[in-house]
Each structure stands twice: as structure tokens, then as C-alpha cells.
């Protein structure tokens, strides 16, 4: 079974040379740490920066240079700053190659819910609705089940949707799954995790076709 860092490491393998990547808050932010050195990649943050680097050294934090998670950041050579309309122009205009974000629920048809629990929690969708409606290559990073042990990979989302029919791939603590026309196709198992465990943790239709390899992290 993977921890959050394991999920981030596995997703980092999905990042290809020449990709502009938008990273959501939480696990997705960690992905940047595991992209191989020397790979040509630029990270975009929707609050208005392309070419994000590591966190600043202590004492060098700048309130005017943050990411979408409101964390202080630095920029790399080749970086640029821009306004919010331009930032979402990049996103809506499909100039960003890969979007990685968290979710509360993903449905077998690619629907996603991640912004609201009616009556309980309403943080807002932030940029997530723009991202999922526009991007062509979206990976969800999340735990396979919620704290109560219930599956987050469902036949149908129960929470208010963020987007419909838009998720391509899900990487969880248990598995890598592709969202296909007929459901979640199991691609890889996390180290030490059995197909049975994945089956038990997946409410949505799970497609198991042939041998399912263990992830290589």
C-alpha cells in the first residue's frame, strides 16, 4: 500500500518531457519533487505563475510569490507571472498538458466531485471546474477509500459534481486505474496489494483484464 509520497512518486512517472503541468493542492503538489532531474517540465499554478521551483530558503519567503495553495514558492529560469484571466486562458485554451488533482469521489464514467459536502463543508471549487472541463489529460490523486473505509471509486458520484466525464486516470494508495467507457480498468497494483483488496475497495465497475503487474516505484 502506498502513502501520499508513494502516490506522488507513481504519478511523477506520468509526467513526460515537454509537459506543462498544473498541480492541485495536497498530494498533487508533492509530485513536483519526484520528476526526474533534467526532464523538461514546467509547473503552472493557476494564481498566475508558470515555471515554479522549490520552496524558498528560510528568510527568503516573499508574500508576493505564492502558489494556488497559498504556499510561498520560488521560480526557475524561464518563469513568468501573469494575471488570472491569462492563467485560465492557458487552462481553458488547453495549453496545459497535464492536470493532477485530488478528489472526494470519482465515478466509473469519469465524473469527479471534490468541492462541496452539502450542509457540512463548502470550500468552493477554486479552479477545479475550469481545469476538469478544459484539460484533456487529467489524473486524480487520492486515497482509494475515505476515512470511514468507504470506496471513493464509485458507480455514480453522490456529492455535487465538479465535472462530468473528464477523468482519464486515477492513482490511489492501492492501484493505478484507467477510466474507460465501461469502467475502471485496473492497470497496476500497489506493492503488496492483492487484486482482491482492490476489488473490495472499489464500488464502481472494476475491469480486470489479464495479469495485473505491481507498480514499479
Amino acid at each position, binding site marked *: 500500500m502506498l502513502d501520499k509520497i508513494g502516490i506522488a512518486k507513481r504519478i511523477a512517472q506520468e509526467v513526460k518531457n515537454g509537459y506543462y503541468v498544473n498541480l492541485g493542492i495536497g498530494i498533487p503538489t508533492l509530485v513536483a519533487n519526484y520528476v526526474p532531474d533534467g526532464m523538461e517540465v514546467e509547473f503552472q*499554478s*493557476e*494564481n*498566475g*505563475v508558470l515555471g515554479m521551483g*522549490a*520552496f*524558498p*530558503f*528560510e*528568510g*527568503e*519567503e*516573499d*508574500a*508576493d*510569490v*505564492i*502558489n*494556488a*495553495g*497559498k*504556499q*510561498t*514558492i520560488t521560480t526557475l529560469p524561464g518563469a513568468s*507571472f*501573469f*494575471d*488570472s*484571466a491569462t*492563467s*485560465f486562458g492557458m*487552462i*481553458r485554451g488547453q495549453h496545459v498538458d497535464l492536470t493532477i488533482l485530488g478528489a472526494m469521489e470519482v465515478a466509473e464514467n469519469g*465524473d469527479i466531485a471534490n*468541492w*462541496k459536502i452539502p*450542509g457540512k463543508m*463548502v*470550500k*468552493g*471549487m*477554486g*479552479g*477545479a*471546474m*475550469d481545469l476538469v*472541463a*478544459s484539460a484533456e489529460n487529467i489524473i486524480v490523486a487520492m486515497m482509494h477509500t475515505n476515512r470511514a473505509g468507504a470506496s471513493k471509486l464509485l458507480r455514480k458520484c453522490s456529492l*455535487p*459534481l*465538479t*465535472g*462530468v*466525464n473528464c477523468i482519464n486516470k486515477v492513482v490511489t494508495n492501492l492501484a493505478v486505474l484507467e477510466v474507460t467507457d465501461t469502467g475502471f480498468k485496473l492497470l497496476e497494483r500497489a506493492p503488496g496489494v492483492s487484486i482482491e483488496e482492490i476489488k473490495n475497495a472499489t464500488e464502481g465497475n472494476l475491469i480486470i483484464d489479464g495479469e495485473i503487474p505491481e507498480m514499479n516505484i
Partner: protein
Amino acid sequence: MINRTVKGVEEALEGVKSDMTLMVGGFGLSGIPENSIAQLVKSGVKNLTCISNNAGVDDFGLGLLLQGKQIKKMISSYVGENDEFERQMLSGELEVDLIPQGTLAERCRAAQSGIPAFFTPAGYGTEVAEGKEMRNFKGKPHILEHAFNADFAFVKAWKGDEAGNLIFKGTARNFNPVMCGAATITVAEVEELVPAGELDPNEIHIPGIFVKRIFQGEKYEKRIEQRTVRKRE
């Protein structure tokens, strides 16, 4: 040159009244018009509708206006760092209209540039799309969104000149440029106000024509929400 300077924050806020709709720049606490917000608190205006990506934190930014119950309605994309906000919202004291961040930005930009409405894919199939006109373009569903209407826009820039020209810094730029000229009156506060001619015309982010009043803020706290650092090796 048309001089857009006003003496200070009091003159900058002249005409702001209860029940008005205000745009407020910033992302989280970065790039917020601190001095204008402080003066709004002081002025005691009430029943405000605020268009702003976030709602500040409990004791800073728009959170200060929430504390004083000066806000009737928030139009935002993300409001997740504010307990008083959540309390007022769940109790029904505060109306909240949550909209996708890119739509929020584009509705400001549309107001700025005389585009009354545009189509965007964001929110299709979600409750955001309820009651809105839908249309397919290249087989993909989109929804029709409208330009905002606001009375005042409060923005914060790094440098500005007497002609109202603005230059922003880093990601403190965010929503500030797209709100300039998107309301009837745009008030810009800047960290440094310089005479006309000192800024390179090529480096100006927002031309002064979009800014009605400009002043140098008295002080800036520039609070950091998530101080994240790495150790020196």
C-alpha cells in the same frame, strides 16, 4: 497626462455606500488592497456584495469585513480558510455564490472590456450550470456566462504613476489587473507612487485609463498564509 491621484484612502473611497457591489483584488492574502479594506471597515458601510476570489482569513483581508457583518453576499471561487465565513454561511446570515475561478476572472475581464457574455466549458454538468444557457461548440458543451456589474473595484499594485498606470509584482498580480475598469469606479492602491514618465510605457501591466483613483498605501503588512520553506543544506 490625466492625473488620477487622490490624496489618500479617504478620498479614494468617496462615494462608497451600503448595498453596493464591490470587486476586491487578491488571491488569498496576496495582492489584497489592505488600505482600502481597512478604510471600508472604518467607514462602516453595510450590506455589501463582494466579488473576490477568496474571503480572507478570520482576522485579515475581507475577513475583517465579515467580522463586522458588513458583507451580505460573497461571490468567490474558494472560501476555505475562514471559520467566521463558514459560520455565517451555514447559519444563513451570509449569501454565497461560488463560481469557477476561471469564470470569475473572465467575467471581470468581460466587464472591463465591454463583452456582455461569453461561453465557457467550466461548470457544465454541475450545479454551476443550473438555469444557464447551454450550447455545444465542436461537440463540447459550454455554458453562457455574463460580465459582472460592480460599483467599485479595489485593487492593489506594486508600483503606479500619477496617470494611474500600474505594475504588479509576482503572483500578487492575480485578479487585480482584470478588475481594473470592470467597475464604475476603480480605486488602485500602490506600494510606490511615482511621477508620470518614470515607468517604462512598455512595462505597464494596466494603463491608467482603467483606473479612476490612485494613491500610495500608508503601510503594507503583506501577511503570508502558508509559510513554506526548505532548509539550507
